[in-house]
């Protein structure tokens, strides 16, 4: 395994080891580029994952202090937990559900498709679906996405069967067990899904794709990739010409280290990535690194989300089996006649008793709440995930008071729903309830959004430097050897889960970075 010197200024430093950083690291290593991944969390291998919601949360979740504001309910119920994401090697690919969907064509050009929407900072991506298709194909093959590359779909569990029966009664057409980066059969050195039911707690069988046990060990095997866990990057440094020269990070012991770099790629998720750029402000970049547009931290998106749980007369046991292997896609189109632009997906979801108590209706108590809890074995559940509007005022800023243990300002997350988000959520709640009522639900529970799992948009791509932070390759407009490699690049969120697009962009970016390095452009 490689070990690079702190003064080796030839390495690419990647901040974060999740879908973006982990993939980019391996792709570059495969091409012979020397890479150091600095990961804030520790390395927890799959045999150490636990099938216990709170214990796993303690093991994996990013629980460092963050603050919140805005009218979203998360700010009231979970004021210091705006996002449910992971701090560990593999990042949120340890915790993700595996849903791997491509954007629709119109979702890369939302400004053209939706027009002017008051309060929304819409912009077309500088890339199209046609340009992305080959990269999507590579990502689907790498991740082993079901219903692509001749890979069979996963078998449907009880929760899916309830949703499917209801969907068919309502006349929905595109209903199946999803495009999942979870092996339905042994593939690529990993076994088939054992229907364990704890996808969010880290897949103990390894059937679900995660950079932790795919990209990262493969990159390490080349001798070109070194992963340093428990390494929290504090600041990115630059020289007098404005090129970045390396990063300062706190190592395992809390001691500050300086890793020199030829290129820096930031992939710390959409809250930490802009925080790092803002915390790297200097005389030359007084508003934060790569922030001449003022767009760093802005346009924070978290998807229109919500859940519908429904109680039936008889048992469902929704928690048995793959958490999210079930989808209804009929509402994902853009059909403004419904009263909103953009679309949403309906995906099976279950949580266990401990999380159901915490998230079904945060703060609720008394008999109506406990009656819902007692219907747990008779419950089916779905997650509603749709495109939310980018708004300039939804943003990550540096908290004026709160600091982390290294003395750096923590991220503050402000979010208000856009009226389009509210209209979409109400429509989705109604349709979700209708699906279950069609097969005999006795009660339905429109459940509010959880702390954000899809954090997007805070360093967005734009054609013109004034409209965003990075170009079509994730390269910052202001600093040519500084890249953004996570979902914060997203110009818009689309209806579907973001990971496949993050991975596709990372594969494409690796190609670009390696080429530019070879041509001595960076």
């Amino acid at each position, binding site marked *: 395994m490689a070990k690079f010197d702190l003064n080796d200024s030839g390495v690419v430093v990647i901040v974060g080891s999740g879908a973006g950083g982990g993939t980019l690291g391996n792709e570059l290593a495969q091409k012979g580029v020397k890479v150091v991944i600095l990961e804030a969390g520790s390395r927890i291998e799959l045999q150490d994952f636990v*099938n216990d919601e709170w214990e796993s949360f303690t093991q994996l979740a990013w629980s460092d202090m963050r603050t919140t504001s805005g009218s979203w309910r998360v700010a009231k119920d979970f004021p210091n937990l705006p996002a449910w994401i992971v701090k560990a090697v593999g990042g949120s690919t340890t915790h993700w559900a595996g849903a791997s969907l491509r954007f629709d064509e119109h979702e890369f050009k939302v400004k053209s498709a939706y027009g002017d929407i008051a309060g929304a900072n819409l912009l077309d991506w500088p890339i199209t679906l046609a340009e992305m298709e080959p990269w999507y194909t590579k990502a689907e093959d790498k991740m082993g996405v079901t219903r692509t590359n001749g890979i069979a779909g996963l*078998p449907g569990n009880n929760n899916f069967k*309830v949703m*499917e029966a209801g969907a068919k009664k309502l006349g929905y057409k595109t209903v199946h067990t999803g495009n999942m980066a979870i092996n339905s059969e042994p593939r690529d050195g990993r076994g088939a899904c*054992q229907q364990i039911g704890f996808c969010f707690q880290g897949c103990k069988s390894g059937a679900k794709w995660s950079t932790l046990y795919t990209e990262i060990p493969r990159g390490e095997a080349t001798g070109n990739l070194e992963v340093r866990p428990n390494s929290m990057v504090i600041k990115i440094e630059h020289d007098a010409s404005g090129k970045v020269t390396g990063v300062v990070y706190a190592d395992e012991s809390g001691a500050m280290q300086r890793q020199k770099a030829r290129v820096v790629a930031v992939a710390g998720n959409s809250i930490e990535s802009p925080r790092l750029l803002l915390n790297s402000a200097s005389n030359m970049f007084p508003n934060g690194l790569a922030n001449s547009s003022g767009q760093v931290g802005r346009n924070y998106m978290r998807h229109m989300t919500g859940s519908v749980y429904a109680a039936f007369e008889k048992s469902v*046991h929704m*928690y048995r089996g793959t958490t999210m292997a079930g989808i209804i896609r009929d509402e994902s189109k853009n059909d403004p006649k419904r009263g909103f632009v953009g679309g949403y997906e309906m995906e099976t979801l279950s949580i266990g008793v401990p999380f159901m108590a915490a998230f079904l209706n945060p703060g609720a*108590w008394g008999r109506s709440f406990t009656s819902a809890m*007692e219907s747990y074995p008779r419950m089916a559940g779905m997650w509603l995930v749709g495109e939310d509007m980018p708004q300039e005022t939804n943003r990550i800023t540096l908290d004026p008071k709160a600091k982390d243990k290294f003395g750096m300002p923590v991220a503050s997350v402000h979010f208000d729903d856009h009226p389009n988000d509210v209209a979409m959520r109400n429509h989705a709640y109604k349709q979700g309830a209708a699906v279950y009522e069609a097969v005999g639900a006795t009660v339905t529970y429109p459940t509010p959004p959880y702390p954000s799992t899809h954090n997007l948009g805070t360093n967005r791509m734009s054609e013109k430097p004034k409209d965003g932070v990075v170009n079509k390759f994730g390269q910052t407009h202001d600093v040519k050897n500084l890249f953004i490699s996570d979902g914060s690049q997203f110009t818009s969120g689309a209806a579907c889960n973001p990971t496949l697009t993050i991975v596709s962009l990372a594969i494409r970016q690796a190609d670009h970075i390696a080429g530019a390095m070879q041509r001595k452009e960076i």
Partner: protein
Amino acid sequence: MREVDRRSKYDRRVFLKGAATTVPAVAIATSTGLGVSDAWADDASTLTPATLKTLVKMARDIYPHDFLGDSYYITAVKPWDGKAAKDPAVKSLINDGVAQLDQAANERHKVPYVQVSWENDRVALLQRIEQTPFFQKVRGDLVVSLYNQKEVWPKFGYEGSSAEHGGYIKRGFADIDWLPKA
């Protein structure tokens, strides 16, 4: 369909054998079917037994599950004694909160909170303090300390950890048998 055995998976012999130092009288009382004696709160160090008993009543009124015996609520609230011992602010939050609850109960019903006979009347008292830090602290803690007890899960038809049993691939992940034919 494979239904879930609602009886606790936890062998009572484990409780009775040697674990007595860590498993309080509560568990033994439950596992032997004797019911919970009043003595469970007597070893409290910082909060009074009466205060702890009020917290237990309050816990049941916040999350009433008639199929759960008091032992689960006791397990959920008893750690407040230790937290109060470590932090004077917690001690006064709990003591003052309980005192105010009792005062309100006395004003309305001429008896302390635990003696108000109907749940609805007690819930009305709780609704008046719903926004207080005392209530919010107790509820916020309880939603984890009650529902995160592994012994409670089978009673809600939840089976907990599954990887060590090979997941559900051979244990009913797709055994639903009552849906209309698609």
